[in-house]
Each structure stands twice: as C-alpha cells, then as structure tokens.
C-alpha cells in the first residue's frame, strides 16, 4: 500500500509535450500520442460542430407541423448528414481517439503507443475520409439515412451515395488502426507490476472497444463496397431482380453497426468507472465484474443485430433468437450500472464537474438501456419501430451516454492534458444546463414516438406539435450548455489556473507525472506496486476534491 501523500511526483519541469517543439510541422508530423490526441480533439470538435448545425436545422424544421423551413428532400439530406457526421466522424472516434490516445500509454506507464507512426497515420486516414465525406455533402449531399438501406441507396437515390460511402469506408481504416494499436499496446507495453487486474477499468473498456473495432469494421467496409458495386456496376447483391436480397444489406450493415453502438458507449463506460471510483474515493465495487462485463458486451454485442430488423421479412424464428440475445446483452450493462451505484454507497462523494457528468450518465444510460428493452421485444417493436421512440432511445445512449461521458472525461483530464484548470463553477453550471436541456429534448420524443409520430418526416400531424416544441426548446438549452464549455476550455488554456500534477489527489499512473506531461510521459519507467483505485486510508486523505490535502497540509 502506498499512501497517496507519498507519491513521488517529479518537480514540474518547464518542458512538456506541448512546448517541447514548436511549429506546424512539429504537430503535423508528430508521433507523440498526446499530440495526436489533440489533433483528433480538434478534428472531432469540428465535425461535432457540423453535425450540431444539422441537428439545429432538424429541430427548427420540426418546430411547426408544416414543412415550412426545409423541403422534404432537403430535410432527408439534413437528417442523413446529421447521422453520418455524428456517428462516423464524432461518436466513434470521440473517446478512444482523444482520451484513449492520450491516456492509454500513460495509464499503463508506457512512453507511447506500440505503433506511433500508425497512430499518426490513423489521424490522416480519418481526415481523408472526413474530407471526402464533406466533399459529398457540399457537392449535393446524401439522402438515404445514415443506414444506407437498399434498394433506395442502390437504385433510387439520386444523391452522392458512393462518395459518402467512400468517405466512411476510408474512415473505417482509421478505426481499425486505432483498435490495433490499443490492443498491442495494452498487451505488450504495460509497466513492471501493471498486471491486467491492476489496470484502470478505462483500459479494459478500451480493450473491449478495440476488439469490436478490429472484428466489426471490415464488415461495414465490405458492405459499403458491395453497395457501391451494385449502384455503379449493377452487380446483383441486394437487388431481387438480379438475384439479390435487400435484407442481406441490413444483416451486413447491422453486423457492424450494432456493435458500433458499443464502440461508442464502451469507452464512455470506462470513463464513468474512473470517475465514479475516483470521485467517491473508493475502490470500484466488483472490479473484475466491471472489467469482464466490458468483454461480455463486446462479444454479446455481435449477436443481437437482428433486433433492428423485426419489422422486415426477417424470419420470426431468427427474430426470437435475436430478441432473447438482446435481452441478454442488457445484463453486462446492468452489472456496470449496479456496480457503479454500489461503489457510491457509503463513499465520500465530491460533486465536481466530472462527477456531475458521471451521475448524469448513470441516470440517462439507464433510461436509454431500459427503453432499448422495449425495442428488443418482438411485439412492442412492431408498434415502436421507425417512430420517435427509437430516436429518443438511441439519443439517450449516444448523447446521454457517450457525450456525457466524453464531457466528464474531458473535464477530468483537462488539467493533465493542458496543465490548466477549467473554471469549476462554470463547469458545474454547464453540466446541469446540458442535463436539463438533454432531457427536455429527448423525453418528449419518447411520448411522441409512443403515440405514433414517425421519424424521418419533415411534416407531422398537429397533435404532435407540443412535444416537438418542447424538444426544440430543449435542444436550444442543450446547444447553449455545450457552448459554455467550448468557451471556457479555450479560455482556460491561456487564463486558467495552473494545474498541479495531481489536482484530484488520485492514485492512477497518469497523475504521477507533471501536468502537462513530458514527451516521454514519465522521467523513469514507473514500477506499479498498488492496485487500481487503491486509496490511502480515510484518515490520511479525508479532504476530497480540488481543495484537497495539498492545501490542507500547507
């Protein structure tokens, strides 16, 4: 046992990974995982902004029942592009490529990822995929929905399906390279003493995510390729007239795209495990259960894709199996939620901004997960399919889950990443605004969907207006809430209070080096002699949060 007070944190050096080198070239050709994480951070923020503008347009159109802001064809493109940008270019890379990239080597006590050049390559591949997709959007856009369902996408759509598909195809390689890098790094580069069961749970969840990235992404690449072959060359894969089957597309698409939901949410779960344990200053309840539930989610997540196809001609017998397995995959997710909650029990909780996001995540993810079970039931799904209930459900997972975790993680590690503290008061305020705005946006959509409001229409019956007005009002609050951190994060980089090496007084390896870290992360390779989340006895560290023992002692 090594009390937190006795950590040997090296005296702050003036040289760190940010100021070690200067100039554009030093960034564009960097092999430092921390700098690449920042490159990703800037890129995904850009795409998040674009996706957000599309969301704004959707909510504006739906403010009134008539299609008075956008034409139906434009609306089709707007919701499609919102989905494509947010899913493929923000949510999937969000936590792994930024926080994962930055923290995985630091958390295992390594100097970098196993393949630094491949890491940089993955960012360039991501950019190429992103630029091709943006070209497709500017050239005329795409209107198939982010799901590219056939035969509309192969035969009838007049939009830029192939160009968009090419962008996603290329972007997939970035995902594969990142996953590969993480797996090899976690296997081979752990510091002496850092056993698998001493790893922070953030690493377990990223390991599970990487498995999905490697095993699933090639399938979406092949599927998009087949779609392009059929659209361009008329090869009969999905067209019944040519001997194909349109449902085959959905099988192939969802074989990746359902596990992709776990690519989005598993890293978020890893962040939440860190936040819950560290901000309640207690070892996580049932470490190995939380760790293995990540792997279970990765494996079971591949066996449930047919629940997206209950209202297609998919065999009802296959539907029964998929329904059962979809219920089964809820178990490992529930294990996590219960274990986080049990960790909080009789712990010493501090309500700093990251913890507010973590608590928000637990509530919102639970609602998102439970409503998923409604959709996994064969009969209920017939009523709810293609309604706003589905939209609300997956936004609770993707925004209420992933985005909340991403924001929580960004606040939590911001002092380590930038060496500056964000303004805590504004942080808490914006976390609450985002929570309220989010719920006001998406809770009414559950009701509207349950009452029968279909998704993907620009006009709707007037009786649904009240829900849509609430939703648009909520989206405005949510958007405002997101702008506040955008402003104070930028502000804090110049004016924020200098961060100590370990501002939260935690045992993790990433906190045992200076903030921001040196290029090599650690002056000397650390030797790990403690368990994950091993806190000093309460009498030694009774004060929690930012104004912890350091100030008390001095």
């Amino acid at each position, binding site marked *: 046992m090594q009390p937190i007070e006795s950590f040997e944190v090296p005296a702050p050096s003036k040289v760190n990974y940010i100021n070690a080198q200067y100039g554009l070239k030093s960034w564009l050709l960097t092999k430092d995982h921390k700098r690449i994480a920042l490159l990703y951070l800037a890129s995904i923020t850009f795409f998040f902004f674009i996706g957000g503008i599309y969301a704004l347009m959707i909510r504006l159109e739906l403010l009134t029942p008539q299609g008075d802001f956008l034409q139906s064809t434009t609306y089709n493109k707007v919701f499609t592009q919102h989905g494509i940008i947010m899913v493929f270019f923000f949510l999937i890379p969000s936590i792994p490529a930024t926080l994962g990239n930055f923290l995985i080597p630091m958390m295992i006590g390594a100097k970098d990822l196993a393949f630094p050049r491949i890491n940089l390559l993955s960012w360039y591949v991501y950019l190429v995929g992103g630029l091709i997709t943006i070209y497709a959007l500017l050239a005329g856009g795409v209107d198939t929905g982010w799901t590219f369902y056939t035969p509309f996408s192969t035969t009838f759509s007049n939009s830029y399906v192939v160009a968009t598909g090419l962008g996603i195809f290329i972007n997939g390689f970035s995902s594969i390279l990142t996953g590969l890098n993480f797996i090899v790094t976690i296997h081979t580069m752990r510091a002496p003493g850092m056993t698998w069961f001493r790893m922070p749970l953030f690493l377990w969840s990223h390991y599970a995510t990487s498995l999905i990235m490697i*095993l699933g992404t090639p*399938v979406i690449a092949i599927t998009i390729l087949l779609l392009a072959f059929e659209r361009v060359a008329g090869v009969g894969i999905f067209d019944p007239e040519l001997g194909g089957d349109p*449902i*085959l597309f959905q*099988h*192939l698409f969802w*074989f990746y795209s359902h596990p992709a939901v776990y690519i989005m949410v598993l890293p978020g779960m890893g962040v939440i495990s860190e936040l819950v344990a560290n901000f309640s200053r207690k070892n996580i309840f049932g470490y190995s259960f939380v760790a293995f539930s990540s792997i279970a989610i990765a494996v079971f997540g*591949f*066996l449930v*894709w*047919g629940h997206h196809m209950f209202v297609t*001609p*998919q*065999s*009802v*017998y*296959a539907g029964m*199996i*998929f329904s059962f397995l979809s219920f089964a995959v809820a178990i490992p997710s529930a294990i996590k939620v219960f274990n986080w909650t049990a960790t909080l029990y009789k712990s010493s909780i501090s309500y700093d901004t990251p913890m507010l996001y973590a608590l928000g995540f637990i509530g919102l993810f639970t609602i998102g997960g439970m409503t998923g079970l409604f959709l996994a039931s064969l009969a209920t799904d017939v009523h709810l399919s293609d309604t706003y209930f589905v939209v609300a459900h997956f936004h609770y997972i993707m925004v209420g889950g992933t985005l909340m975790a991403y924001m929580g993680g960004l606040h939590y590690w911001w002092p380590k990443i930038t060496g500056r503290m964000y303004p805590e008061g504004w942080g808490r305020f914006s976390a609450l605004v985002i929570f309220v705005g989010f719920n006001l946006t998406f809770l009414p959509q559950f009701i509207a969907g349950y009452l029968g409001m279909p998704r993907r229409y620009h006009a709707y019956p007037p009786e649904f207006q009240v829900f849509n007005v609430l939703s648009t009002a909520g989206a405005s609050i949510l958007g405002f809430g997101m702008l506040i951190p955008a402003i104070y994060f930028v502000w804090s980089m110049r004016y924020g209070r200098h961060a100590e090496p370990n501002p939260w007084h935690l045992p993790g390896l990433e906190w045992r080096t200076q903030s921001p870290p040196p290029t090599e992360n650690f002056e000397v390779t650390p030797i790990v002699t403690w368990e994950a989340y091993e806190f000093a006895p309460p009498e030694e560290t009774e004060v929690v949060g930012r104004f912890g023992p350091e100030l008390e002692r001095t």
Partner: protein
Amino acid sequence: MSEHIVSVRVYITIFLALLVGTALTVAAAFFDFPWRLNTIVALTIAVAKATLVVLYFMHVRYSARLVWVIVASALFWMGILFAFTFSDYFTRHWLSTGY
C-alpha cells in the same frame, strides 16, 4: 520478432496457383452443375485461394501461435455472421406468410 524470409520461388508458385484458381473459377462458370454444386464449387475454389493468400502472402504459416489465434478468431467471427444470417434465411419459409 525475427522475420521469416519467403523465397521468390514460393511467391511465384503461389501466384501461379492463384491464377490457376481464377481460371478454374471462370471455367466452372460455363458449366451448370446439378443440385447446389454451382455455389459449392465456386466457394471451394475461392476458399482455397484465400487460404493460400493468408498462409503465404500474409505470412501466417510462418507466424507465431498468437497470430494463428487471431486468424482463428476472425474466422470464428465470420462464422457468427454466417450462422445468424442463415438463421434468418433457413427459417423464413417455416411460416407461410407469403414472404
């Protein structure tokens, strides 16, 4: 990790074998085999070719056990894709709903 050097002769032999496989695929397309043999013949040739590529061009034959495990897990995952997709196709006609 020591790199196994594959001789140019092996590469050329495999390349020629792949060409023969391609020729066989084209030739087989001109015959209408009975029962479901059309698909079976085409897939057999394709799998044989893919195996050659994986073993020799991708050096899996000379790689460590861990690489074999990775390859096996990829095949297993492909098995999942096939098995569950077929769970749909093979049972669709059990209920005569007109589909």
